[in-house]
């Protein structure tokens, strides 16, 4: 990275002098692109990322956000103003990374220019008195000066990979290596820009949608089919690939014995996929960690649960519910919560709300619970309501909750709210000729996440490039070595010295190795001449 001294003058500028707008802009640019500002922005970025891990995020888990908002009514408006429910898309977070990016560009451009020249520059010529450098060796060689210098140039340049100065004075060799360190540094910073481009591309043009599909059903890839849909800012619905997916079968295997019993081990969904409505259907199979890829759109299996077949017959004996109802799992043993809305029931609309237990069990202490996640003894336990479901009011309503404003509990003969506890296959009559409820059967559902994130390859490539550049900038050590020879009588005395331009290198070791190559006596004796130890 750049020498400290080069930066100091840029950092140490005082407050803006009383100058015109051009000078002021220049001053601001210099402040922004200074190393100190970059450092402050970097730490600010780390700090600004924190709230997003503490406050539930819209983009991560919208349901938790909704719950949090109901629990903290007074804080919610303040948090909303601050954008705390969507930190990573908030203006203040964007401000930090945009400034950081500008600072980055403002830093790379001039340095690339400097490096462009420096990378092709000759190594600086040797200082006059090499003995003054803290790390140096003095030794004697049998060759005459000309032969030795020729050999030294070859050893330093070819064998040790240094760049050797071409126009050295007589009796001098100047060499330098580690030119790629700054290149690595620049590549690292450029690669960060590449990652940002890839990330932004995906965030702007991509989408992520979730859909729950009961086995036997299917869905087609259009916005209206999704339960939740999170498009990028520049996403257009027309870019959705027109594929359809049928969920034919879903297998989940639970561990039945030993420790870990009850935890799921394998989920497999068998799908029939058409890449367009007219295309032939192909069978495929997806699992956790093994998504389906249709023309760049990926379909992931991210969850599953139960959809009991709860049939409501109204007072006139008509079936007024769909075949199955999705119940959302609430715990690892798949106790699930769901709502049945019979809007067409006559004389009154009927609503059911309650729980499904795949393996129903009951104790006095706990009440009903599910003893096992697999469907060994399925049962439902629900409360029934009659009245107005509120579906005609025009307000959007969740299919997983009951709006009880216009509803009143159906009561049994004792006047208590009527509880409908049914094992699979059983029916319960509702009082007052309202109809009946039957628990007919059971299906499973899968939760699929469908997403398309363009630019993933760009982001990945950028990160790998950044890592390569980073390693270069950390582990390549710029080093200069110099040699001077002089004749004393018929002896050739060599002074070898080196200078590290980064800390942490083993300069002494490098000079020792170099000396061993150049000085046959040192190689055989294993000792060096005059040597001062320093690291």
């Amino acid at each position, binding site marked *: 990275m750049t020498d400290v001294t080069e930066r100091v003058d840029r950092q140490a500028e005082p407050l803006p002098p009383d100058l015109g707008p051009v000078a002021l802009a220049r001053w601001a640019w210099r402040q922004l692109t200074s190393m100190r500002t970059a*450092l402050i922005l970097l*730490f600010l970025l780390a700090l600004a990322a924190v709230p997003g891990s503490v406050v539930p995020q819209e983009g991560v888990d919208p349901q*938790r956000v909704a719950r949090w908002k109901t629990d903290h009514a007074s804080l919610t408006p303040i948090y909303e103003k601050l954008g705390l429910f969507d930190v990573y898309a908030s203006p203040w977070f964007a401000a930090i990374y945009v400034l950081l990016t500008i600072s980055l560009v403002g830093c790379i451009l001039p340095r690339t220019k400097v490096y462009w020249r420096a990378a092709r520059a000759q190594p600086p010529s040797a200082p006059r008195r090499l003995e003054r450098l803290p790390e140096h060796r003095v030794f004697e060689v049998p060759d005459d000066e000309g032969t030795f210098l020729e050999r030294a140039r070859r050893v330093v340049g070819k064998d040790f990979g240094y760049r050797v100065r071409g126009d050295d004075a007589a009796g001098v060799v100047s060499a330098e290596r580690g030119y790629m360190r700054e290149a690595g540094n620049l590549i690292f910073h450029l690669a960060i820009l590449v990652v940002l481009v890839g990330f932004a591309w995906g965030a702007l043009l991509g989408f992520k949608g979730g859909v729950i599909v009961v086995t036997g059903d299917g869905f087609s890839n259009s916005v209206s089919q999704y339960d939740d849909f999170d498009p990028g800012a520049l996403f257009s619905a027309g870019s959705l690939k027109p594929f359809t997916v049928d969920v034919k079968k879903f297998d989940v295997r639970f561990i039945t014995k030993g420790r870990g019993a009850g935890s799921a081990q394998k*989920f497999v969904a068998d799908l029939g996929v058409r890449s367009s409505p007219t295309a032939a259907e192909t069978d495929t199979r997806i699992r956790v960690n093994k998504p389906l890829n249709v023309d760049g759109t990926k379909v992931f299996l*991210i969850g599953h649960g139960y959809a009991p077949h709860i049939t409501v017959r109204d007072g006139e004996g008509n079936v007024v519910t769909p075949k199955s109802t999705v119940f959302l799992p*609430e715990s690892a043993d798949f106790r699930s919560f769901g709502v049945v809305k019979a809007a067409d029931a006559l004389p009154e609309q009927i609503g059911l709300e309650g729980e499904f237990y795949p393996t129903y069990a009951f104790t006095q202490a706990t009440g009903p619970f599910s003893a096992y996640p697999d469907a060994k003894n399925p049962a439902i336990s629900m409360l029934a309501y009659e009245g107005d479901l509120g579906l005609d009011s025009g307000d959007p309503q969740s299919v997983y909750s009951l709006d009880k404003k216009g509803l009143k509990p159906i009561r049994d003969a004792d006047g208590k709210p009527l509880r409908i506890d049914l094992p699979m296959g059983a029916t319960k009559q509702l009082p007052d000729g309202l109809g009946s409820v039957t628990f007919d059967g059971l299906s499973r559902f899968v939760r699929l*996440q469908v*997403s398309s994130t363009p630019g993933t390859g760009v982001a990945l490539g950028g990160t790998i490039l950044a890592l390569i550049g980073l390693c270069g900038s950390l582990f390549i050590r710029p080093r200069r070595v110099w040699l001077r020879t002089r004749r004393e009588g018929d002896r050739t005395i060599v002074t070898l010295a080196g200078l590290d331009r980064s800390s942490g290198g083993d300069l002494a070791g490098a000079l020792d190795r170099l000396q061993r190559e150049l000085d046959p006596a040192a190689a055989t004796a294993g000792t060096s001449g005059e040597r001062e130890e320093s*690291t």
Partner: protein
Amino acid sequence: MSHDQFEVLSNQAVAACAFVYFLVFLSHLAAWVTRPREVAAATPAAVSTGTAGGVAVADPPAQDTVGGGSDRADLWKRIAVSLTVVAAVIHLLALVTRGLAADPVRVPWSNMYEFTLTATWVVVALFLVTYKRFKLAWLAPVLSVFVLVVLMVDVLFLYEPVVPLRDALQSPWLVIHVLAAITATGAFTMGGICSALYLVKDRSQTKHGTARGWLASIPSLDALDRLAYRWHAFSFPVWTFAALIAGPIWAEYAWGRYWGWDPKEVWAFITWVVYAGYLHARATAGWKGRRAAIVALVGLATLWFNFVGINFFFGAGSQHSYAAELIVRSVGG
């Protein structure tokens, strides 16, 4: 041997290696007690002239003079190093048998207990590998106590019986991503220990003018600072790979997004940014010594918080929480 027997063996090996780490510490204590007096008296002077002259002393002066009449201390030190190797081998045995205890056999880092067990081993292994090169004899007592304490916490609070691998974790990326994260965590921890010792020694020197007692026997501030930098320079690329390359690739396969601002991802990012700031400050602003050490410790704090804090405090909100069944959470919300 059956899987259950392997599990018992693993637990016993953990206890055994913890005991040997304790013996390592005792040996270092014995080496300290039997150290030659005159060397102890000369040490502070040697350090202060060393730094004043601008010549860094990479190894503790006590070590240089070990030959002169400190045979017993020298012997104790050799015993300590040998015992460390023994402890590391037993520790490794604990890891291997932990993996063999699962049915089917798997890598021993699928929950916090196993992660900590492996990470402490990585710390010891890094120590032994660099023992000669970085002349780390002085670090051994600190390290043995540190590893011992972490192992105790691990066994007392984090222990979990062996269970089969969940579906979500059955991926080659479990090996690549988590192993890289463990290695980086171990190496960052080594760097953090050096930075912490720097701050302690620095404080003691400002207070008393010169470091005293044991602090006098550890390397100079300059050498500590450089050693800390080397550890961080090694860890940072590894962390970059673990958190920003391997992690996102796996997340793309498992969850359909390579970066989703999940709390664990947020804190991995924060850790990365703080350590990037550390390296950046050293390289361009010339931060060294105290300020750099403080940034390094902030980085280590975020790293450990990410490991401990996210799993315990943000459990329900993180897909990386290994307390709850992942697949349920993503449906139930």
